[in-house]
Each structure stands twice: as structure tokens, then as C-alpha cells.
């Protein structure tokens, strides 16, 4: 079920992840909204009263399937305003929108998740999904890159995931502080450090486009087929239903046909500036 006119959501938890990233956990205020469900990789439009909406990917269900977490970077008017809200405050939500990660195609395969910066947020739901249905998937390899080691969020979660059987976590920071447990350098360099069986790997990426381009190029050099690479794109989105035109990207609307694309679908335009 998709909600097209916003409904009221109550903030039931708020986490400061870093100086400019926070997570709002939301709960429906009306009983009748329980038909709502989402696929990992989809997003919601969150509404700040009197200011406007922003597209935010959905992190995960709560334990009781009624909680929806949204990790947000404080950067524009709406996100600045959202960051000032408190537990118990009310926001609007419509969604879920877009096409999520290819859960079916990933079955029986090793899943390589490559994320950069806040791109780790849209991948959390897929990680949760794989961990919940562990028998359906092979190895899970999680690579996360940040500009500065201080930018890393979800530190505890990465540590927990790293302890699980058949899960490998590797972190990279372009610039690092002393005691940084990960690699100092580019995330693409991690691809050579982790062991990948590219004959049965499916890659899912989310992060800055330069990073995703470089990763896709390196992976194809390593002989991973291009169609085994999926990536989540981002553009200005205001309507979320393919009408407002802002996220038009060649022959697609990212909000509707995406945000998750198979690499060959978008490879050409990703190499062009201004689209």
C-alpha cells in the first residue's frame, strides 16, 4: 500500500549519529495505516510542518514491524528543521516510493555491499533483510568508505555485523585519525583486500557517484559482469511519483524507475556531466 497524501507520524526515538547526521524513528499515529509496507531500498517523503518535504530512505522495521527509522544529514532547510524536532513531535510521511534492491536476483549469491558516506543508510535495510533470511544468501561482504574517519556512523552496528559468521566488514577512510581500525585510502582498494568469488557475487552500491563509478569500473576489470552490479542514484526529488521532472535522468525518473538501477541501465549517463 502506498500513501499518497501524507499521514501523521510520531517521533519515538532520535539518535545523533555524528555532528551532522541523525536518525528519526517514526511510528504511525493512526491504526488504519498498518497496511503500509516497504522494500529495502525504497524511500519515503518526510514532511516538516510549514516547510516542506524531503526524500529519505527507509532504514528498517522495528522489532514489532511498526517502527521506521530514517537517517538524515542536516544540510538544507527541511533537514535542518527536522534535526530540531524532539521525541513526541509529529511529522508527515508519504510513501514508500521507487524500486528497491533486487532481492530475488541476490538469492543464492554472495552479496557485496559497497557504500560511501551516508550511502550506508539505504543499505541497512538490505543488510537486515539478508541477516533475517540468512539461508537464502551466501557470504555478505560490507564495504563502507568515508572521507574522514570521524564521519563513520553506525560504528557499533559494523562491529556487530563483523562478528557474525559468513559476514565480512571492511572500512576505508580517505583521511584517518590514529586508532582507525580500517584501511586508509580509497574504498576501491578494499576490493583487492577482501576475498571475492566474482562468479557468484552480486554487488549493491550506494554513495557518491564518483565512488560508484570507480567501484563499478574496478569490479568489471576484475571480471564481475556489469549486470551483477546494482546502484542507488539520487537527484532532486519533489513529487516522488515521476511527475515533477527534477529527477529525470535520460529516459528514466529516478524516483519511479529507480532509485536502484542495474549498472548497464545507467552506465552511459553516469559518465556524462550534467544529467
Amino acid at each position, binding site marked *: 500500500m502506498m500513501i*499518497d*497524501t*501524507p*499521514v*501523521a507520524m510520531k517521533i519515538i526515538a532520535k539518535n545523533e549519529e555524528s555532528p551532522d547526521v541523525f536518525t528519526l524513528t517514526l511510528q504511525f*499515529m493512526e491504526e488504519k495505516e498498518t497496511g503500509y509496507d516497504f522494500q529495502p531500498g525504497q524511500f519515503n517523503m518526510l*514532511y516538516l*510542518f*510549514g*516547510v*516542506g*518535504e524531503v526524500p529519505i530512505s527507509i532504514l528498517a522495521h522495528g522489532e514489532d514491524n511498526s517502527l521506521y527509522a530514517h537517517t538524515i*544529514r542536516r*544540510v*538544507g532547510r527541511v533537514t535542518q528543521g527536522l534535526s530540531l524536532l524532539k521525541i*513526541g*513531535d*509529529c*511529522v*508527515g510521511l508519504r510513501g514508500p516510493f521507487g524500486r528497491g534492491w533486487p532481492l530475488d536476483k541476490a538469492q543464492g549469491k554472495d552479496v557485496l555491499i559497497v557504500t560511501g558516506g551516508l550511502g550506508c543508510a539505504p543499505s541497512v535495510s538490505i543488510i537486515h533483510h539478508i541477516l533475517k533470511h540468512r539461508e537464502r544468501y551466501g557470504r555478505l561482504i560490507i564495504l563502507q568508505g568515508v572521507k574522514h574517519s570521524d564521519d563513520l556512523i553506525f560504528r557499533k552496528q559494523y562491529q556487530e555485523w563483523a562478528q557474525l559468521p559468513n559476514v565480512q566488514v571492511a572500512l576505508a577512510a580517505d583521511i584517518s585519525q590514529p586508532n582507525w581500525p580500517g584501511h586508509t585510502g580509497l574504498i576501491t582498494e578494499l576490493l583487492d583486500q577482501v576475498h571475492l568469488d566474482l562468479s557468484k557475487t552480486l554487488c549493491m552500491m550506494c554513495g557518491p557517484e564518483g565512488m560508484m563509478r570507480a567501484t563499478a569500473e574496478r569490479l568489471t576489470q576484475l571480471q564481475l559482469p556489469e549486470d551483477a552490479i546494482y546502484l542507488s542514484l*539520487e*537527484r*532532486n526529488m*519533489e*513529487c516522488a*511519483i*515521476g*511527475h*515533477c*521532472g*527534477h529527477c*529525470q535522468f*535520460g*529516459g*528514466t*525518473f529516478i524516483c*519511479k524507475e529507480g532509485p536502484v538501477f542495474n549498472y548497464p541501465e545507467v552506465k*552511459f549517463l553516469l559518465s*556524462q*556531466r*550534467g*544529467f
Partner: protein
Amino acid sequence: MLYFLAYEQINDLLNALRTLGYTCMGPQVQDGTIVFDELNHAAQLPWGVHDMQKPGYYRLQQSEKKEAFAWANGPQAIKPLLFKPKESLWRVQKNDDGKLIFKEIMPDHKPVALIGARSCDLAAMAIQDKTLLKDKFIDKQYQWHREHLFVIAVNCSYSGGNCFCVSTQTGPKATSGYDLALTEVDKGFVVDIGSDKGRNLITTLKCIPATETNSRQADTRTAQAASMQTKRMPKNNSRELRNILMNHLDHPRWHEVAERCLSCGNCTAVCPTCFCHHQTETPVAQGDGSVHAREWDSCFTQGHSYIHGQVVRDTTEKRYKQWLTHKLGTWWDQFDTSGCVGCGRCVTWCPVGIDLTEEMAAIAGESNVVTDKKKGPHDD
């Protein structure tokens, strides 16, 4: 069967539409252009007015011959009636306990009867229907306007200097999308019926059948409009343009046109198929409510490609390229049609007279000039 509507019956037509509950909108001269506004009386029509159009140029001229539709088009026609420049979508109210209550806003006004839609405008309406109506998601407000619209098309007897609908196969004669289609002839109009609503109206007006002479004259008039066109879209606006554009993203012409383009957005504002809009928020003065609306936007603005602190299209070159590659190119991927209907508005209303057919010609290497043209009676 074709009917004849005499000039004297125009007021009867307007009265009949009003009796059916419609607000009549029709062409009239305002501020030196032909615009669509409420039409209460036939006398308001632009009798004897011709429009002179060139790249970046639009002037009206009064002639002796008293025809009501002796012009090609004005800056706008159907689009602002269906896909409004600004339309409220929902309202939110904040309770005393801080809870937000959302309520959808639907249009609430009399239905509109539009008199004088051109063939290119109807082609554009069919394209907007694909974007907003015949999609996985429906724009409910657009749908309301669309379902309540009564369309009286008027086939063109004259083409403007920037018209190229013959090459885009969207005119000058309307083929669908109307309730009634008129063609101006001596002393009145030949009327073609496009729907049951249209038929009922003609029955009410007790129109007589058109004579053989009337029909022949109507055909001559539309043929005259077609023959007046000097411009064409290269490759006849076909799907071929898509690959030509996408294979020439580094063509030097992009840089050259960007040197002239002001990135003002006039072309997108007058384009009858452009649908970009941004969402706006207007809180009420008391502070306990707000209205969320959509408002026309343009890919020529900086904000259009804004994303978390960056602008994807930070130069005019990128914006012009975005516009043309979408309109004539990847529009095919999304809607199985070109986004151009040959109305020439973007050429006329461009303050520096950039002509998209000329830009396309430079990139496609095929002329935008009609060469096998039979001279029309109004050419010199």
C-alpha cells in the same frame, strides 16, 4: 457529417455552454498578444488580427478582413487550464496537541469550455495526459480539470513564422482530442463533431449542414496554413533524433548555443508539454496550518537540479543540453513520443531568438528549412 456555424451563432454557442454550466475561455487581445481568458461575447474575439512571429519576435497586426482566427497562436493555450501554473495539493492543520491532520485539496470551480484550441495544443494535451494521467501514478487535480474540459478546436487557416507542425505531424488540422473542431470559412465555420457532448451542443444550436462549397473552402484554408510553413524539425521530429542527440553530447554547438542562451526559462514556460514543477509550502498567518502546492518550475533554473548542497547543472550549457536532449530525445524512452509538437512558441518567446529547429539542424546535420514549399497566398 459537417455542420455550419454562422458568425452570428457564436454568442448562441457561448450561451449554450454557459447554460451547461461551463465558463467559456477564448482568445482575445491583451497586452499586445493573443491570450485565453473568459469569453463572454463574440465581440471579444480577435477579429481581423494577424500575428507576426519570428525568432524572439511577436507582434499583432490589424487587417481589413474580419476573421476571428486569422492568427497562429499566442504564448499559452490549454496547458495553464489543465496543468495550472500553481495548484494546491493538500492542506495540513496542527492540532492543539501538535498532531498534524492532512487533507487533500481538489479543484472546486465551474468546468471550463475552451474555444480556439489549436491542433498543436491538442497534440500537447495528449502528451501531458501521458505524463500526468496515463501513468502508474495519476495527478488527481490534472485529472479533474481534464475530465471537466470541453474542447472546441479551431483548425489553422494561417501559420505563424515559427510554426512547424507539418513536420511534426501534429497539424495544422486537429485529428482528435476535441468535442468540436471548427474551420473558419466565409461568414462562419465548418463544424466537425468529435464527441457526443459536441453533437448534443450542435443539436441544441440547430446548426445547418455545411455545403459542399463550405467544406471545400475549409480544406483550402487548412492546406493554406500548411503551405505557409517555412520551418521544419530535422528528421521530421522522429525517434531518430534521440540517438543523434545522445551520441553528440560533446558537439561544439552546445557550447555555442549556451553563449546565447540567457537560461531565463521562457521556453519552458510557453512550451505546452513541459511539466516540471516544484512543491511549495504556504503556512497560514495563524501558524497552525499550511497549504502544500505544486508550481511550474523550469530546468533552466539553478534550483531544478539542486541536491543536498550541490547543483548538478551549474552551467547554461548543461541546462540547454538537458532541455533539448529530453524534449526531442529521451522523451521517447519515457512517453513513446517526442516532447515537441511544432507550435514554435519556444522560438517566438525566446528573448534572444534561439530556434530549436536550427539548433537541432546544427547537431543533426539536416536542414530545418522547408525546401519543396508551395508558396502560400500570404507569403511574399
